[in-house]
């Protein structure tokens, strides 16, 4: 049985920040990551981030990942396990982990769950043809392994991920046949959408995919226009020849460990689905379980990093590792988070959060 003060599950932007800030305050942290590398989705982000200097604005996601990974490896209070899958959280506080093929148990005093989110998919005819990917898979192929996913690709979804990945595809030399968005307007940042339009990429708003076509792999896609009730309009179908289709239609928080542990959950469509109720210190309804990042509601990586910092600082302080600068650092991080959520693009997030963030106690 492993004993540690804090177990951080997931080493993406939220988990790395949580581990770093908890360990810097003096706590012993075990950071477990399912993948064979740290950084989560950050390592695939070749674009520059928005926000303010404190959240690494102006830097590329992959460079931020490198900084955080180096920082986490330099702190002696953090033990890092890669290829480690958390299998279960039991009522007696025991956590089971599969670590490099071996079965391990741990009994941490506190747990910070930062498992992130998984991609949503869509039901349409032939959605299982080779050539159809989630946006995460496209980024992994292109930006991690240097493999182009297709010669000519159609993007479904004009949210931030859709517009950013479409632009990355152009940078990799892939033709982008268009972006299809069911809503009447582009949801992603204007600056990314404008770049695509300057490259002549058509954006089909109020459109949706009807069917994929192909024999042994994807050859084309039929899209059609949607009416005001989001129903396809007969006769508006158009065929687009592509060998790749990329789905960027949202993310669902990866909450199974929270359900297992009995945390109180609530459905908030604005945050991607079921998320845990928690207080302003990121504590769930479970005394020893905290959350940070997309698992507590799908948002930008910048917000995930600040939530990770808050959770890390707070959990360390609960365990008696309170830095002299705790109050100042904690308040600064809270104001950063409010600033990140103050723009018009964050209205939806804030509506979702108002359903699940409990009044601050104490």
């Amino acid at each position, binding site marked *: *049985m*492993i004993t540690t003060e804090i177990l951080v599950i997931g080493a993406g932007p939220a988990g790395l920040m949580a581990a770093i800030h908890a360990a810097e305050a003096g706590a012993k942290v075990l950071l477990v990551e399912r993948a064979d590398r740290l950084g989560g989705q950050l390592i695939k982000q070749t674009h520059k981030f928005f926000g303010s200097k404190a959240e690494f604005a102006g830097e590329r996601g992959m460079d931020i990942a490198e900084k955080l990974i180096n920082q986490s490896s330099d702190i002696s209070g953090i033990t890092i396990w890669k290829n480690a*899958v*958390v*299998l*279960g*959280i*039991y009522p007696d506080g025991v956590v*089971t982990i*599969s*670590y490099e*093929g*071996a*079965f*391990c*148990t*741990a009994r941490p005093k506190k747990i910070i769950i930062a498992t992130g989110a*998984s991609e*949503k*998919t*869509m*039901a*349409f*005819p*032939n*959605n*299982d043809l080779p050539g159809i990917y989630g946006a995460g898979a496209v980024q992994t192929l292109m930006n991690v392994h240097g493999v182009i996913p297709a010669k000519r690709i159609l993007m479904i979804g004009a949210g931030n991920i859709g517009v950013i990945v479409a632009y990355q595809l152009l940078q990799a030399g892939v033709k982008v046949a268009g972006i299809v968005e069911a809503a009447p307007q582009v949801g992603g940042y204007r600056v990314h959408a404008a770049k695509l339009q300057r490259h002549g990429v058509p954006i089909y708003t109020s459109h949706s995919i009807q*069917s994929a076509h192909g024999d042994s792999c994807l050859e084309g896609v039929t899209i059609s226009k949607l009416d005001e009730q989001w129903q396809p309009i007969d006769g508006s179908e158009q065929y687009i020849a592509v060998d790749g289709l990329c789905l960027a239609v949202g993310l*669902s928080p*990866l909450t*199974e*460990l929270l*359900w*297992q542990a009995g945390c109180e959950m609530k*459905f908030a*469509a604005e945050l991607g*689905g*079921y998320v845990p109720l928690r207080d302003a210190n990121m504590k769930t309804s479970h005394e020893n379980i905290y959350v940070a990042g997309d698992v507590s509601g799908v948002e930008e990586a910048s917000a995930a990093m600040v939530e990770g910092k808050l959770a890390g600082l707070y959990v360390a302080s609960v365990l008696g590792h309170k830095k002299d600068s705790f109050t100042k650092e904690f308040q600064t991080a809270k104001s950063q988070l409010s600033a990140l959520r103050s723009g018009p693009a964050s209205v939806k997030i804030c509506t979702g959060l108002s359903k699940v963030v409990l009044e601050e106690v104490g």
Partner: protein
Amino acid sequence: MNHNDIIICRCEDITLGEIREQIAQGKHTLEEIKRACRSGMGPCQGRTCAPLIVNEIAKATGKPVAQIPLPTFRPSTSPIKMASLLGGDKHD
């Protein structure tokens, strides 16, 4: 291609037609549908198909998505080899 042939659960090869058939028989929760046809019981443990099936139940019953209960989540979250378990806990 018929819409009923759309694959909903990739792990277990369950089609939209099969899911609709289960719903038509009165199974209006993920738990009941999974017990009848194994949807969501493969390696991904329903991470892909659960939201799609919930949408189908919502459409058929007129209930909001938020009122359709999810199945019980139990350990383990991911498949584990018998060999790992046979060795016992490495750290015991």
